[in-house]
């Protein structure tokens, strides 16, 4: 399937309508659906909510566009609802967290691999190893708090093992701000990749901030507090890659193109026909929204939006296991650190970040505590076949 972004009309904005019944359709099966269907649902909720948030920010600094922004935002809010409500009620917040980290790992890996700008690709690999570690910590929490196996959610697509340890991911804010791409020189895919990651990470931060207090267990509350803080760092990192000199309409146009690209990728890989029909419908909606914003750009800025859009969409995001790539990145880059806007070797770790991290960890490290000696095994660490069967936990008290 190829799409001509500049000429596709999509569904006109005024025909993008919903009923409450449509918004709340049957959820996927936690047990039977493919893990990547869940991954796509989570990412697309993030993309819709991220776009919605961007458009809200625009409305706060631009009077004349407020009605246009409100019209598109309303549809986006309903799209996000219809997508996010596909998650089933038997999927606990902690199980959903496992899936969020799977999204972060597999999607970031795919974007890192198809990113032509080496600086951005390096940043993606840098963030990837941190989210990879979060999956390991949350898997330990799921096992040790509830006796459940994270692989029931991951379906063996994504590894559960330490990445760059969360305890060393804490950095001074100055060391999370990167250099932006150049809006005039960057390839369209570079812009779409960066927006995808900003939105994915932003929803992850929001999710952890909302569900952290739902847990009774103090270590679970601590772990969510710790990892939500890293997600704030990641949003800072990824959003700083966006060129701040893009005009407001340029940003809006890219926003819509990003949504088109993401639904296009979902359509390419979806295996559940009912969910695929939703992706197809929303791809048409996004093409309609893109068309609408193209018209606004021509009208208000007198610019040809074709200058900013690729003639055809790049290769879709690959919804598949990136095990080999992640292992390679782990092997080569786990010891890297960030200092200023550079990714640096361990020995050049910044003093401000070291001081910040030392203080944050000075009363204990939730991520180290939860995974003390933890090694994932099929069926949890309590499984009789687990190599490092940890039955001594209580006996040690």
């Amino acid at each position, binding site marked *: 399937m190829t799409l001509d972004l500049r000429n596709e009309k999509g569904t006109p904005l005024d025909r993008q309508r919903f009923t409450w019944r449509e918004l709340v359709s*049957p959820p996927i099966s936690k047990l039977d*659906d493919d893990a990547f269907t869940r991954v796509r649902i989570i990412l697309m909720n993030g993309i819709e909510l991220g776009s919605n948030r961007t458009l809200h920010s625009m409305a706060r600094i631009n009077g004349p566009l407020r009605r246009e922004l409100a019209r598109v935002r309303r549809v986006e809010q309903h799209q996000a609802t219809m997508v996010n409500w596909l998650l089933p009620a038997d999927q606990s917040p902690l199980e959903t967290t496992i899936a969020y980290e799977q999204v972060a790992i597999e999607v970031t890996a795919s974007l890192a691999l198809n990113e032509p700008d080496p600086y951005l690709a390096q940043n993606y690999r840098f963030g990837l190893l941190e989210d990879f570690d979060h999956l390991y910590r949350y898997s330990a929490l799921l096992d040790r708090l509830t006796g459940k196996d994270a692989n*029931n959610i991951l*379906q*063996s697509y994504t590894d559960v093992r330490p990445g760059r340890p969360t305890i060393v991911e804490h950095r001074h804010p100055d060391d999370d701000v990167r250099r932006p791409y150049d809006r005039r020189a960057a390839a369209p895919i570079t812009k779409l990749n960066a927006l995808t990651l900003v939105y994915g990470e932003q929803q992850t931060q929001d999710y952890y901030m909302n569900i952290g207090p739902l847990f009774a267990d103090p270590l679970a509350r601590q772990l969510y507090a710790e990892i939500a803080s890293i997600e704030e760092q990641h949003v800072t990192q990824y959003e700083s890659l966006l060129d701040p000199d893009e005009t407001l309409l340029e940003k809006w146009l890219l926003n819509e193109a990003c949504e088109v690209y993401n639904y296009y990728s979902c359509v390419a890989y979806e295996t559940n026909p009912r969910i695929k029909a939703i992706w197809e419908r929303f791809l048409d909606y996004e093409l309609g929204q893109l068309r609408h914003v193209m018209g606004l750009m021509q009208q208000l800025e007198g610019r040809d939006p074709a200058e900013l859009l690729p003639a055809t969409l790049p290769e879709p995001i690959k919804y598949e296991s990136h095990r080999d790539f992640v292992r390679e990145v782990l092997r080569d880059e786990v010891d890297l650190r960030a200092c200023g806007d550079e990714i640096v070797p361990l020995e050049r770790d910044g003093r401000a970040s070291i001081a910040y991290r030392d203080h944050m960890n000075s009363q204990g490290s939730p991520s180290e505590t*939860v995974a003390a000696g933890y090694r994932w095994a099929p069926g949890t660490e309590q499984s009789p076949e687990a190599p490092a069967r940890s039955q001594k936990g209580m006996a040690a008290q």
Partner: protein
Amino acid sequence: MKNGNVSIRVGTNRTGVGTSPLLTQAMLASVAEGLPSSPGNSGAVAAVRIDYARQAEPLGTMPPPATLKGVFKTAVEVLKGNKPSFFLDKVGERLAFERTGSRLYEAVISKFDAYGTWDGGPGRAELVAIWADEVSHFELLNQAMLRLGADPTAMTPSADLAAVASMGLLQVVTDPRTNLAQTLQAALIAELTDNDSWLTLTDLAASLGHDELAAEFQRAHRAEEMHLAAVRQWVTAHALAEAKRGDASP
């Protein structure tokens, strides 16, 4: 109704490693390379729990007596060497549980209407009768709180705890994907704890000299015993029937 009360079919469950042997083999090879970043075991979790528990405040308190009668009754009970707030907390717990129980059975009845029943399963009228009992038990406890000079609208600490403990039951009965048989499994959990709790409450009332209340609570307990017996019977009948079902579903 797509599946009636057939709860289990063989399909495409992907959660176990057995459904993805090649991926799992690669996963195990990769996981073997990654060593934990800190030594220890799950006992580390307990240390944090104990540390926080030692500094924790309770969930909350009982409200002061709601009326002058309540103040007087409290004073009398204290003079008798009793702790009236403990009893009121437990009455408040049952009150809240019964009030939620009626909502639970409303959802169960919807499942009856959506999925139907089975040989040896409940009739609609039987479910409605249990629901009506839950409502009347709530009303009984509401009156009891008023007679004791307490505020029946307050959420007592034990009421709060019991609601947290049974959160999953409401999730099970209101999920459209669960059938009547599955919702009755949740109702069975509720009935089991309800039975024990009524027994304790009746004993408490008797031991504190609230003879009239003790008699009323005993009648409620008898009704709850009948609920428990009925739900058990329906659940067992369903399990035996489905386990031996000779249809196409293995």
